[in-house]
Each structure stands twice: as structure tokens, then as C-alpha cells.
């Protein structure tokens, strides 16, 4: 509901790669905000709906590293005392792929033939890089876009400061972390900051926008979408 | 405080038994799992998690080379000699270079071939705590020494460390208090890695010395604004003379 354009770009890119894409309309949320705050039952309720929404699918592609990690890593813990839901959760986890991961590992595509001229840098979100171990896939996709100048972000695996409720519960610390992240982004001279997690991008773009910075933030899918013919 | 209350019923136990009983009791609460069961066996742990070690060639020359590289990178000095006479003259050079005046040294058979006491004829003060009429505590007189000379038990190629054991005639302070520490090691004391030294001590665990020290380079600290300080409490200079033996 906040960044539909990122989801639409994901849809567009997949369609351009000849993937048949459906968007189950009962899907809402993976439950992470509640889970990470320690409210387990509330998270389980939301998660059950998500599992139900995706019951009959072959692959599930998610343009969010943290949601993917939540489902793969935490659903088994969340439902360890509910064998029926646990089985379904594990099945969901097995079919689930993060966007870049799907392109590179399943479709085996690194170069989509996209063209876009810009200087870009990339922020590795914590869950995607450390919990899912996906670090190279998005970079490969980015570097293969013709016209892109890719600059590595200093300390790129350092947390941006979002952390769900952390960003409001511990707003001072969160802002301090964001300040450093933004300084690093600016130091690259990039026009666009790319990411694979909309929560990180919301956080970083919130800070950039507050200081009136012209640096754009974009999900990797959005850049690819713009670089490919309609 | 609530922990102690539990043991009103077990007053007869000694403190050790009470303490360990409590530990055992708490551990028993842990849910049994496959992983826990496997981890209970120390042999399983040691075999199931193998380590790939860096390659260090077998030859003494290669080990000496590696040792020298490691220690020099830390600011230590390494001299290689070919005979006891060579060792003694190298020792004299080092003493001159560092302007040594007051020397304390091991009185141990490992240094038998090095006539350290004869240095007094060259104007060095070779200190012993029998200097005074009444023996003084070692730490008091040793404090004025500027140089300490020891042997070694092992030299470790991988890290540039020497291993010194305490004992009669092998005082701890000699490698610790003076600003300069000179150790004489023999080439046949070389081992590749720390694991080799630990294996030796496991094999000889019935007769361990009261203290063993692995010494690697000079004393150091980075506590003041991350600046490197050398020679904080221990020696600022360490020189290892490696004597080749057959």
C-alpha cells in the first residue's frame, strides 16, 4: 500500500521474462512487525492468512528480502507447536524466492538486456544479506544494465536503522544509524540508491527527502523495469 | 538469594557439592534433543568438526623463516647463529646495541653453553639475589635489571612465539620485568604450530611446571586513543637468538 510501483515493476519484469504471474488477492502481510516486537500470537494470526493465500502456487516471488527471511527462517519457529500449519509453512518456504534470487538462481538470468543511464549504489539489507545469504544476485543484475555506473556503498552491510518498531521505539538511535547510512550513500556520488527491501528504502528515502536530497531510491525491480522496453 | 533458600533442605552438603548439585539440577531442565545428545560426546565434537591447517613445511629452515617473519612483523628481533660461540658473540652485540648494564638471567642447563657470568668481566653487572648479605625477594632486586636472558622450551613457527616454563633457575620475572628480553632457543626446539605445544603438555600433564608462558613479541597496548604503545609493563624489546644444532 506504500510502494505499489515496486510491486508493479516486479510484475512487469517477470512478465517480460515470460513468467506467468498471478497476485493472490488475499495476501496481506507476513507478520514480521509483530513477530519482531515479541508479539508472537498476533504474528501467527497474520501469518496463517498469508499461508492460506498462497496455498496453490508453484513459485512465489517476493520483492522483499526481509519478508522472505521471515517466512523461511521464522515460520518454522512460529508454528513449531502446530504441525498442520507448520507443514504448510515449510511448503511455502520451499516455493518462496526473493526477486533477485529468483531471476539469477531459478530463471538463470543475469542480463535482461536492460538499458538505463545512471550512477547507482546498493544497500544490502540485513535480512537478505545475512539471513538469506543473498549478496551477489542483485549486484550482478544491476551491473549488467547497460549504461549503469555501479559504485560500491561503503559499509554497505551495516544496518540502515529501520528494524521495524525499533525505528520509532528507539528513534534517536535509529536516526543516528540512518545519518551514517545517508552520509555513506552521499559519499558515492550516486544518483540512485538501490535496494531489495522496501522497509529499508522507506527509511533511507525518508531521511534523504527530509534533507531535500535529490538522490532517488528505488527497488532493483523498478530500475530493471525502467530499463526494459514496455 | 532465592537460590540459597532452596538448599535449606540440603544442609549437610559442602559448598562445592551444593554448588555443583545446583548446576546439575539446572542443566537437567534442558530439553533433550538429537544435537544435545551428540554434543555430549567430546570425541564426537573433536572428530566431527575437523580443522584444515595452513601448510607449514617440515624443514627446520622453513620453520625458522616463518618464525622470523612473524616475530619481525611484531617488532621482535631474530638472530640466527651456528654455534654456542656464535651465540655468545651475538649476545654480546645485542647487549652493546641496547646499552645493557644490569643483567638477570636463567640459571638453567639450557644456557650451559653460554658463559653469561663471564660477562661481568666486560663491565656488565650480572645480578643475582645473593648479591646482598641477606637474600632479598627476587622481585625487589630484579626491578633494577634492564636486561633479562632466558632460554626457551619451544619456538613456534606459525606465530613467532617462544614458550618459557618456570622452574628452579627459570624465574618468571626475568622475561617480564626488564626492558629488554633476550631468549636463546635451539633449532631443535622448533614446532610448527601452537597445537603441537598443547599436545606435548597433554602428553606430559602429570608433570607440568607451575607456569608456562607463550611470549610473542614485546608488551603492547592500544588503550590510549588506539595508539600503539610498546613496552607497557613487560619488555619493550625482545630478541630471539636461534642457535642451529645438529
Amino acid at each position, binding site marked *: *500500500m506504500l510502494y*505499489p*510501483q515496486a510491486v508493479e515493476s516486479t510484475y512487469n519484469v517477470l512478465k517480460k521474462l515470460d513468467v506467468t504471474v498471478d*497476485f493472490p*488477492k488475499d495476501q*496481506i*502481510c507476513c507478520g514480521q512487525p509483530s*513477530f519482531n516486537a*515479541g508479539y508472537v500470537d*498476533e*504474528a501467527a494470526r*497474520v501469518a496463517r492468512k498469508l499461508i492460506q493465500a498462497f496455498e496453490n502456487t508453484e513459485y512465489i516471488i517476493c520483492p522483499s528480502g526481509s519478508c522472505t527471511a521471515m517466512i523461511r527462517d521464522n515460520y518454522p519457529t512460529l508454528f513449531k507447536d502446530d504441525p498442520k500449519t507448520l507443514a504448510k509453512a515449510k511448503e511455502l518456504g520451499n516455493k518462496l524466492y526473493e526477486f533477485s534470487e529468483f531471476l539469477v538462481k531459478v530463471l538463470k538470468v543475469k542480463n535482461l538486456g536492460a538499458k538505463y543511464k545512471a550512477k547507482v549504489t546498493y544497500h544490502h539489507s540485513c535480512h537478505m544479506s*545475512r539471513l538469506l545469504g543473498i549478496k551477489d544476485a542483485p549486484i550482478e543484475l544491476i551491473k549488467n544494465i547497460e549504461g549503469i555506473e555501479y559504485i560500491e556503498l561503503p559499509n554497505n552491510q*551495516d544496518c540502515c*536503522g529501520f528494524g521495524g518498531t525499533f525505528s520509532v521505539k*528507539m*528513534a*534517536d*538511535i535509529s536516526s*543516528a544509524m540512518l545519518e551514517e547510512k545517508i552520509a555513506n550513500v552521499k559519499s558515492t556520488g550516486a544518483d540512485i540508491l538501490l535496494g531489495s527491501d522496501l522497509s529499508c528504502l*522507506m527509511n533511507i*528515502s*525518508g531521511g534523504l527527502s*527530509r534533507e531535500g536530497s535529490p538522490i532517488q531510491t528505488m527497488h532493483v525491480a523498478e530500475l530493471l523495469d525502467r530499463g526494459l522496453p514496455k | 538469594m532465592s*537460590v540459597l533458600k532452596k538448599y535449606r533442605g540440603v544442609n549437610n552438603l559442602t559448598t*562445592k557439592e551444593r554448588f555443583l548439585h*545446583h*548446576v546439575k539440577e*539446572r542443566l*537437567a*531442565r*534442558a530439553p533433550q534433543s538429537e544435537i544435545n545428545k551428540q*554434543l555430549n560426546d*567430546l570425541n564426537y*565434537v*573433536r572428530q566431527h568438526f575437523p580443522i*584444515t591447517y595452513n601448510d607449514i613445511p617440515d624443514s627446520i629452515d622453513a620453520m625458522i623463516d616463518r618464525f622470523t617473519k612473524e616475530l619481525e612483523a611484531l617488532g621482535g628481533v631474530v638472530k640466527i647463529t651456528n654455534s654456542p660461540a656464535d651465540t655468545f658473540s651475538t649476545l654480546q652485540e645485542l647487549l652493546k646495541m641496547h646499552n645493557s648494564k644490569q643483567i638477570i638471567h636463567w640459571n638453567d642447563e639450557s644456557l650451559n653453553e653460554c658463559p653469561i657470568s663471564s660477562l661481568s668481566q666486560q663491565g656488565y653487572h650480572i645480578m643475582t639475589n645473593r648479591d646482598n648479605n641477606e637474600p632479598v625477594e627476587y*622481585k625487589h632486586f*630484579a626491578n633494577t635489571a634492564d636486561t633479562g636472558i632466558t632460554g626457551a622450551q619451544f619456538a613456534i613457527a606459525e606465530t613467532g612465539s617462544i614458550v618459557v616454563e*618456570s622452574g*628452579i633457575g627459570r624465574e618468571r620475572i626475568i622475561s617480564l620485568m626488564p626492558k629488554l628480553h633476550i631468549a636463546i632457543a635451539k633449532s631443535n626446539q622448533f614446532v610448527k604450530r*601452537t597445537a603441537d605445544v598443547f599436545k606435548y603438555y*597433554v602428553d606430559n600433564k602429570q608433570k*607440568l*611446571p*607451575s*607456569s*608456562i*608462558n*607463550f611470549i*610473542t613479541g614485546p*608488551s*603492547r597496548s592500544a*588503550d*590510549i*586513543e*588506539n595508539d600503539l604503545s610498546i613496552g*607497557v*609493563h*613487560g619488555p619493550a624489546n625482545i630478541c630471539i637468538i636461534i642457535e642451529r644444532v645438529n
Partner: protein
Amino acid sequence: MINTDFRKRVDKALHDEFFRGAVKRTTEKLRNGRINQNKTLVDVQEWRSRANALRSHTVQNLDKYLDEFSTKLEENGSKVYWAMTDKEAVEQINTICAQKLAKSVVKSKSMVSEEIHLNHFLEKNNIEVIETDLGEYIIQLAQQTPSHIIVPAIHHTRGSVAELFSKVGDEQLPAETPALTAFARKVLRQKFIDAEIGITGCNFAIAETGSVVLFTNEGNGRMVNSLPDTHIVIMGMERILPSFSDLDTTLALLPRSATGQKITSYLSILNGPKKQQEADGAKEMHVIIVDNGRSRILGSKYQEVLNCIRCGSCLNVCPVYRQIGGHAYGWVYPGPIGAVITPLLDGLDRWGELPYASSLCAACSDACPVRIPLHELLLELRKDKVKLGNNTKEKLAFGAYSVAFSSPTKYKLIKKVGRKIQIPFVKNGKIRGGLPAPISEWTRTRDLPTLANKSFHERFEEIQRGE
């Protein structure tokens, strides 16, 4: 309901420019040191896996190893004491000091001694306690607590150290590291010689031989354990390994993780007091084995945290520690390890905000040489904190969330209503402020995006209709 003391401490830290810079420089240096030095191992992951298994095994069999260790200690001629609480530990140490008519004690670094407030207790009993670790000496003079496990005085400048030392020596010392170090060496040297008692911590105890192992760099640890006649070791009961062969595993990891070294300048293995005919060394060795809440952790889902080897790696990669430093954590242990064990040792009700002082980024778990899943343990603590209650508003909020976000119709309604409600707060396509807490916390420093006019649910329907 964040503890106001915590908020104050965080606030203070965030406003101290020099301190923040020092923390950043130090943690950057140490984490790069670990990464670079780990490359000198063929595969650090092998060592980490082994270390985790080894430490887990040891903790699982803690009673057995403590029994073996203490038996061997006594065979070596040391005395052993068992302290279940901090009070027992300090009283026992004080008794030994009184028996020895001790007037001064030299100490080398021991985090457990901070847990039990040893210095304060001894000073109350008119015993001079001198910290001899350069960093600990500095903060002792400044009457502060450490701000980092390995480098406790990073919050000081050369200038502030010169000021502290100048007062001691009654002379004006320059703010230059070599001069300051030389001064500390001179002053503390005499203290080592004069002290009746030396107190150290214990990096690792070796059960098989009754050995106490110390990893140090300055030489003060060696002075403390061999110059005074009596040596007291304070040991957290979990700091134990089965055999020397296992020491090699922790040796490969601890110096690399703590200071970026292959090995510390000194690795001391003490097998009891000096033998009778030896001319130097402590005549007596006393080992105090301390529980102080650790047994509460045994058998619980948190047991793995006792694997910790106190290397500080987690601090050096933690983005939160990087911004707030050590004092903000309020107790002995800062950073991720502190956020986990402080509530466990001293009460979750008292330290409930610490597990939330994290974005759960998992950098700590990634860096930990013994593979403690710190970020998972922080999450477990949050779950336990929620169960403690006293969080009605938050529980209601998440309850509402779980109802709305598990029902497509309610979710649709939320979006519809939200799009209308936001209108007065939107300026130039962004929300800059005006919303109530906790959202106001966000908008203090960041803009918020607006709820899009069409979510992808709605766009998808359009796409399917061919628009």
C-alpha cells in the same frame, strides 16, 4: 515504556561528538582486524563450528568439568571457593585479603570482578585496589566504568589521560602516548612490587589439569599473578574447557576476534602456585568460582549464550553500539552480548529495554566466533518481555494489527480510511509531521511516504482488465 535512565544514557552518548567518533574509529579498526586476521586461517568457519560445539559441550557438562577442574586445582596446591552470589564472592576475597593483612591489591582485567563490585567492597574495607590494565587504570582514575570490553577507555583523549595522570604524579605530563605510557609503567611497577595480593580474571580454566589460562598483551597480567605473594583468580563458572587441545580452538579465535592478532603477546598457563624451591611466583593461589546468576541460564533456551568467550566481536559490528557506545547499556557488558546477558543475570524486569535496543540486523550472530545466535536470543527476550505484561497500549495496537491484517475485507477498509485520514498531513506528496506518537517519533527526523491512491491489489485488478 522505555526506561528513562536508558533514554538519558543514550541521549548523553549521542550528544558526545568525541565519544561517537572514538567508538566508530575503534570498532572499525577492531572489526577490520578480525576480518583480516581471520583470513590467515584456512577456513574460519571450521574453527567457529568447532568452537561452538566445544563450548556447548562443555556448558552441557558444566558440573562434571567444574568438579574435575577443582579437584585438579587442589592437587596442584591451589585453594578453591564456590561463590553462588556476588556477595559470597566479595566476602570470600575480602576474607583472604584480611588473612594476608593486605593493604594493597593489584588487579588485572576481570569483567566478573565488575559484576560483583569488588573494588568498591575492598576499598570500603580500607584496601587499596589498583587496576593495572592501562585502559582500566585510566577509567579507575576517572571513576568511570568501561565503555568497551576490550578497550575500556576509548572515550578518553590523550589530553584527558594526561590530565588524570598529571594529578597522580603531581607533574605536568604532555598529551603524548609514549610519555603517558612511560608514566603508567613507572607508577604501576612499584605497585606490583608492593602489593600483597594480585587479582586476575580467567580467560579459560582447563579442567583436565586444573590450569588457569590468561590472554594478555601488556604484561600486567603476568606481573599480577607472579609478583605478589598471593594470587586470587576470579572466574565466571562457565569459562572452562576440557583440555589443552581444546585451548587451541579458542586460541585461534579469541585474539583474532578481540584485537585482530594471531596471538596475544602473552598467553599464560598457571598450574598452581610456585613450586617450593622456585625463587619467584605467587606462594598461594586462590580460585573463586562465581555463579552470580549464570545457573539461571542453564537448562533454559538461552543456554548457548554461556558459550561466550568475551571477545567483543559483537560490539565491533553492532550498528547500535557504534552509535551509543558502552555506557548506555548501563551495566558491565555492553553491545549485543550485554543486551542478552544483562537481563538474564540481573532481571528482565529491570533491563527490559535492552533487548529492544537492536534492529535485529544479525551482524552480531554473523561475527560471533562461537556462533551464539545473539539476534535470535534478543528476539526470545522480547517474547518473554511481552509475557511479563505492563504493555497494554502496545498489546492492543498489535492486536488490532493482527485482526486487520489477517482479513482482506478489513485490510481493504483500513487502506480506504487511511487514504482519507492522511490528507491533512500530506505536503508535497510526503508526510512531514502532525501525527501522534509513536509515528511522530519517525517524523522527527524522517519524512513518511503517503498511502498510495491505488495499492497493487487494485492495480492488479486493472491490469487483469487490460488497463
